Structure formats: C-alpha cells, structure tokens
C-alpha cells in the first residue's frame, strides 16, 4: 500500500510534466492521470482501513533528514475526497475550456495543484508541510489568474500576497519549533511538546498563518473576490479543497501535535471566530447579487461551522462522545467539499449558457437547465445541512456536542446559520422555478452536467446514507 502513497504524489507530478510536453493531447493525459490517482486514493483508503496507519520513508532516510510520507484515517479520507472532486472537475474542465491554448495553460498548473494537495495530506513533518503549503498557494494563485480578466488578476494578486503572508507566519512558527525541540516530525513532536512560551508562540504563529489561508472570519476578506472571479473548475477546487487543506493543518496541530498545549480558552476564541464566520458569511451570501459571490460567501460561512467544533472537542472528555464529535466535524468538511464543488460547477454552466450569473435574472432556469438546477438544489440541501446529506449528520453531532457540554451559544449560531443558508439557497431556487418562457432549449453538455450532479449526489445522498464508516476510519490514528 505504500506504492499507493508514492503514486499519489508521483502520478500528478508526472502528469503535470507530460501535459507540459504534450499540449495537444493534454486533456487525455490529464483525465488518464486523474483516473489513476483516484484508484490510488481508493487503494490507500482500503489499505488504511485494513492495515492501520501507513508510514513510508523515501529512500530509507529516517525522519529528521529524509522525507517521510504518512497516512491515517483522516488523511486517507481527505485524499479520496480530493481525488473525486478533482477528477469530476477535470472531466468538467475538459468541456469547459474550448481552445487548445486555454487547455495547454490549464492542465499543468491543475496537476501541480493536485500534486501539492496530495503531498500536503501525506506529509508527516512540519517542513514538508510548509513546502507543500507554499506550492499549493502558488499553483492556486496561478490558476485563479488564468481567466486573464482585470478583476481576476487583481483578486489573484491579493490572494498571492495573503498566501505569502500566511506561509511566512507558518514558517516562523516552524523555525521556533525547530529551535526549541530539534525536530519537525509530527509524531516525535507530539510526544516532546509541553505547554510553555515557545510552544504557545509557535502555535499562535502557525495558527494565525493558517487561519489567513483558510479564510476564517475576520481574515476572510480576500476569499470572495478570488473565488468569485476564477473560472468555474478552479473556483470549485479553491473553495472545496484548497482552503480545506489549511484547515486540515489546523486540525492536525490542535488535536494531535499540540494537544498538550492548547487550552479551552484558545479553542473558545476559534469558536467565536467561527460563529462570526457563520453569521457574517451567511448574511453576505444572502445579500449577494451574483451566484458565484453567493457561493464564495457560503464558503466563508461553512468553514465557520468547522471551527465551532473546537470548543466542543476540548470540552468533551476523550472517549466515544469526543470521537463522535470529531467524526461529525470531518463529515461536515467532506460534505462541504463535494457540495461546494458541485455548486461552483453548476454555476459555471449557468454562466456559460445564460451569459451571466445575476440571481435576479435567473427566472426559468429550472425549465431550461433542469439537471443543473437539480444539482444546485441537491448541493443546497447539503449546504443547509438537511437530511439525507452528510452535513445533517455533521450538524447533528455539532448540536449534540453543544447540548452535552452545555455550550448553548454554538447551538443557537448553528440554528441561525442553517436558516440563513436555507434562505440564500431558496432565493436562488425561487428564481429558478420562476416563470419565463424560452423558445429554444439550449444544448446540454453531459460532460459538464454529470460531474456537477454526481458531486452533489455524493454530498446530499451517499455521505449521509452510507457515511457511517467515516467514524470508524477516523479512529485509525498515526
């Protein structure tokens, strides 16, 4: 199964080079690579489920000198989600970009982004995490600026600066850790680190950098313009995966590596910021005039929910109740990944067919683009957190944790956020169902509609109805 780990990094990297060298058959190469990566991610998950957490040292160099890859239940799940979302978005992109030159610029960066995502999720030490984070940020910025429009370039530039600032803060924290403990290996650090000024400062620096990258309120200012002006497949992946990679690191640091260092008060702070994100993001999504802005603000809100779990996780005693809550957190993150990707892909279809994405002028979309509207509705079910989506199970655990620990304020925030989410989704659907006769039906492109539909079905049906194994997988730690 270690082959699968190597494959997850090597395949997209090789694919990126191949698409660079063979621009004419880039699409075929990219889709083929994507299929291979997805198989590898599936195998890895199977391996982790059957054999437990996996560890591999490249070239036999042990931690400290060489590069070590590691995978546990959490990273294997996120790797598979990444693979499925990227594959669906790749199929979509093969129809979305019509000219050869567009594709030739798109595919190498796309596969590079995929490489850095996979490498980040497999990294076992802080320095590699820093490198992959930087690589991820750069490839994301490059993809976001591909549209070439003025707004896209301006937003991408801001995205670049924010990303660099975030990475630098992260690197400063890494430096402190190395100076203090002499190792960057996560497993070794988890044993060595104790509460103290060095650990606190390092954690604060790294967390601040990551919060900037994951766009937690009030550091979210860069996200809506960047995500709303990129092309549809890129927006999908930025919102579904890239911000979540930074969130994954926060989760790792807070719950695994720095578990002895974090305090309930610090977790409460994250919870408060998360609550701000939920309320402000949902409110702005409700006010948005364009679909893509709505989706981007919704990402700000949805990331907020994930941070609401931190005060609960720290208040719950280690044991089944805490594992249930942690599973709910991951379930919510996975569902959002699929749902948000689907939403952005569907919006892309509307934008291409109607020439705009102004919500007020969407009347009649349900009649003209039934499959796309259905995808938006399904993704909406998952974003609101209604059954049978995975988000329903996630929010259930969030509410249960809030009740069990007596932290009622998070319950109220979740309830208000969900109702606001319902309001902004219904606003779109209300217009879509509206009446406006159209003489000619537009051509529907299956390669665009199916990825959006399947991703939405993953979020709204599969994860909710068949997601129980997630809790078992998460218990497979490092």
């Amino acid at each position, binding site marked *: 199964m270690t082959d699968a780990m190597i494959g997850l990094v090597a395949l997209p990297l090789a694919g990126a080079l191949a698409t660079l060298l063979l621009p004419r058959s880039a699409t075929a190469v990219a889709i083929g690579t994507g299929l291979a990566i997805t198989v590898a991610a599936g195998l890895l998950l199977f391996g982790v489920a059957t054999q437990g957490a996996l560890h591999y040292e490249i070239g036999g160099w042990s931690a400290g000198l060489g590069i070590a890859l590691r995978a546990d239940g959490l990273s294997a799940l996120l790797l598979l989600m990444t693979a499925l979302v990227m594959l669906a978005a790749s199929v979509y992109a093969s129809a979305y970009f019509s000219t050869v030159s567009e594709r030739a610029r798109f595919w190498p960066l796309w596969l590079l982004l995929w490489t850095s995502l996979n490498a980040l999720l497999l990294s076992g030490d802080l320095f590699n995490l820093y490198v992959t984070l930087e690589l991820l940020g750069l490839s994301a910025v490059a993809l976001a600026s591909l549209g070439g429009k003025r707004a896209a370039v301006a937003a991408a530039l801001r995205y670049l600066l924010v990303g660099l600032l975030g990475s630098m803060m992260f690197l400063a924290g890494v430096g402190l850790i190395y100076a203090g403990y002499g190792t960057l290996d996560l497993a070794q650090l988890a044993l060595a680190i104790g509460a103290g000024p060095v650990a606190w400062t390092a954690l604060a620096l790294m967390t601040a950098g990551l919060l900037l990258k994951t766009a937690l309120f009030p550091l979210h200012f860069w996200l809506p313009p960047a995500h709303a002006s990129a092309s549809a497949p890129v927006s999908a992946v930025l919102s579904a995966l890239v911000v979540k990679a930074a969130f994954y690191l926060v989760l790792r640091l807070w719950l695994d590596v720095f578990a002895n260092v974090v305090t309930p008060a610090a977790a409460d702070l994250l919870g408060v910021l998360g609550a701000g994100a939920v309320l402000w993001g949902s409110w702005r999504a409700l006010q948005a005039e364009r679909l893509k802005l709505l989706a981007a603000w919704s990402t700000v809100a949805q990331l907020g929910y994930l941070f609401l779990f931190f005060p609960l996780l720290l208040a719950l005693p280690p044991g089944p109740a805490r594992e249930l809550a942690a599973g709910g957190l991951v379930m919510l993150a996975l569902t959002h990944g699929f749902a948000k990707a689907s939403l952005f892909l569907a919006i892309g279809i509307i934008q291409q067919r109607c020439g705009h994405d102004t919500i007020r002028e969407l009347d009649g979309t*349900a009649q003209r683009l039934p499959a796309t509207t259905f995808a938006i509705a399904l993704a909406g079910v998952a974003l609101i957190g*209604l*059954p049978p989506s995975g988000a329903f199970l996630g929010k*259930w655990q969030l509410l249960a944790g809030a009740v069990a620990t007596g932290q009622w304020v998070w319950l109220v925030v979740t309830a208000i956020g969900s109702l606001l989410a319902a309001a902004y989704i219904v606003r779109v659907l*209300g217009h879509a*169902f509206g*009446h406006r006769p159209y003489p000619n039906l537009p051509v529907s492109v299956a390669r665009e509609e199916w990825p959006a539909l399947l991703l939405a079905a993953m979020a709204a049906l599969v994860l909710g109805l068949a997601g*129980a194994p997630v*809790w078992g997988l998460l218990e497979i730690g490092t």
Partner: protein
Amino acid sequence: MNWDAWLPVLVVASSLLPGLVIFFLREGSHRLRTALNLAGAILKLLLVGILIWGVFHEHVYESRWTLAPGLDLVLHADTLSVLFVTLSTVLWLVTTIYAIGYLENAPHRSRFFGFFSLCVSATVGLALAGNLFTFVIFFELLTLVTYPLVAHRGTPEAVRGARIYLTYTLGGGMLLLIGTVWLHVLAGPTAFVEGGTLGSLPAEYHPQLKMIFLLLIMGLGVKAALVPLHGWLPHAMVAPAPVSALLHAVAVVKAGAFGIVRVVYDVYGVNFADQLGLLTGLGIAAAVTIVYGSVMALLQDNLKKRLAYSTVSQVSYIALGTAILGPIGTIGGIVHLVHQGIMKITLFFAAGNYAETLGIHKVSEMNGVGRRMPATTLAFSVAALGMIGVPPVAGFVSKWYLGLGALEAGMAAWVMPVLIASSVLNAAYFLPVLYRAWFREPGPAWPAEHIPAARFETSATLLWPPVVTAMLALAAGLFAAAPYSPLEWATLIAHREYGL
C-alpha cells in the same frame, strides 16, 4: 431474503423508485408515466395489505440501517404507523388518478409526478419511522419534496407561497431537530414504543423534558398548523388542486399531527406527559386553533381558502384527542386522522373540479352549481356534512368519541363548549355553500367553462376520485363497527397504547 425486514423498505420504495424514474422521462411519454405511477400505487396497496394483516397478528416488521454510530435509520411497522400508511397509500392512488386528469396537457408533468411520488414516499417513511431520529429525517424530506410542488406553477404568487411555506416549515424543522438532539443527549436513541419510554428517567430531568416537549410540539405544530404557527397554510393554496388535496389530507398537515400523536404516546407516554402537566397546554393550543380556524374559514370567500382554514381547525381535533387522557379520547383523536383525511380530500377534489370545469374559485360564484355538476356537488355535500359532524358520515364518529372521552376524563367543562362552538361554526361556513349550490338559481354564465357537459359533468378522471372518497367517508361512518374499519383499528391502537 428476510421478508420481515424488507417489507417496510419495499413499502417506501414502491413509490420512491417510480418517482425517481419519472424524473428522467420525456414530457411526451404520457402512457409510460401513468403506467409507472399506477403500478407503484397498486403495488404499494398490496404491500400495505400484507402489512396490515401482519401487524394485526402481532408480527414484527423492522429494518435498520446505521447512518452514524448510535444513529440508526429504523423503519418499523406498528398499529399507529399502519393506520397512517394505509391512509396515505389509498389516498395517493386516488389522488394520482385525479392528478393525471387534472394536469392533462399541462407543462412539466414529469417533474410534477416525480416530486409527487417522492412526497408520498416521505410520508410513508415518516409513518413507518421507528425512532424520533428517523422521523425527523423523513419530516425534513417531506418539506423538501413538497416545495417544488407548491411552487409548481411558477407564477410570482406560487413562488412566494412556496417561499413562505418553506420559511415556516424549515424553522419548525429546526426546532424539532434541536428538541430531538437534546432528547438524544439526555436519553439516548428514542425509539417509538407503545406507552412511551421517558417515564423511567430520573426526576431531575423533568424540567428539561418539559422544554424539549415544547420544542418538539412547536416544531411539529408548524406543519400541523397549530395557531399561531399556521401562517403558511393559506398561502400554500396556490398549489395545484391535487397537491392541496394531498397536503391537507395526508402529507404535510397530517404529518405534523401524526408527529404530535407519536411524541405524546410513544415517546413520552400519555400518562407521563399528563404527569408532567404537558397535556393541558397542548389541549388549550388545540382548542384555540379549532375555534380560530373555524372563525377564519367563515370570513373567506375564496373556496380553497375557506377549506384551508377549515383544515387548520379540523386537524387540531387530532391534537385535542391526544390531549384528552383516556382511551376513548385517544380513539377519537386517532380515528379523526383518517376521517379528516378522507373528507378533506373529497372537498379539495370537488373544489378543483369546480375550478377546472367551470372556472369557479369563489363561494359567491357557486350559485346553482349543483344542477350543472350534481355528482361532484353531492360528494362535496357528503364531506361537508361529515365535517360538521352530521351522522352517519365519518366526522360524526370522531366528534362522538372526542366528546365521550372528554366526559370520561372529566374535561367536559371546556372540551364540550369547544366541540359545540366548532360544530356550529362548521355549519355556519359549510351550509351556506350547500344552500347556494343546490337551491340558488345559477347565474347567466359560469366564470370560465373549460370542460363542456358531455356524458359526465366533467372528465371522468376528475369525477370519480371525489365520488369514491365521499363513499369512503360515508362507509367509514356507516360501518364504523366493522372489522378493520378505521374506528376498530383506532380502538386497537388505543388498547395497545394503554396496555389494555
């Protein structure tokens, strides 16, 4: 294959799968769509027949699927669920036939019938839910799949009505969800067990249990249209007639009432709920709703709106019966679940017939309509008289048991005046309609005659459903003592609930 575990799943799937297939049919494939719809409805009826027989003989049908650790999706058939499943299945079959006629040549029929089937699947799933968690899932699903049906026409009015509907029901759903989660944290998975399970919890939980009860009933009360949570219902009238019929008789409103019955009897236990002092509050809310709905119905000229407010009033009889301690009151409440459904669906079918055939939407336009459409008007009259409580129509049986139950429970002092006032008001808003329809001279022309009188007064698919349901309403009253009648079944439920 384990038949006992699969039967509840099949009952849900027999409408779910045809519904999903119908989404993908082209608009033109009218026959295939009709065949799928009817095949699903008839298959469901057969399966439900087996279910009734099995449950009567104390056979256990249960399917279980784990969604997350400690959270199981459970479908379980007991006497109460079978009652509701049977009602939904029979009325779905009738409504499907009606809708096929009603929507002839209308646009987006695949979408309509797809969601229509999903709506019934959600209702049946909710009826068969074996624990509160499963109930919440199907309750929310029902909200989702009825939204496109209410918005179906796509007019600004329809979209607005649907938005109001969704605002209310999602808000209610959130309260229900919070209550359910709270209860789950307190007491673990809450399975529906006859007689309730919460009575065994220690006394220090009682204040929390009262709060939870309030949350649950408020959440359910939105769908059940308990005043002041009923505001969505008159707006949802913009839906096509078959949708209104289904919404009022079986699906949405009834789901809320059914949930109240479940929570009181099978979660808290009626004796424990009474011990906590929760039944009085519920009874007062029901009584206020009954009177308020009737008064509002009196003020409406729009026929469908009058019927809508009548629903507000009539559905609360079920909650009232729940609040009356003792088996007789229980029987009255539960049997009204069925009786109100049959009678109300007849009224909505008839109202739809008037609108489709002659363009009549208002009570004031109904002068002499009995001469032009005698069969429809006869069905309407039977159902209206039943609503008032005139024997031998089904509604009389419900009111009789409610009154008797109140006497037995020593609550007659306030239940009786409510019942009498409501019956008087029912008569006040239904009898003038009947008088106009039968005895006034018709005007020179109907508002908009769409379907000319030929062999029947309107097309056959529109005519037979109300006639059949009116006969059912009559039969449920005339043969109330026959085996397997709604009353007998409600008696069986009450016996099992009280452990008699």
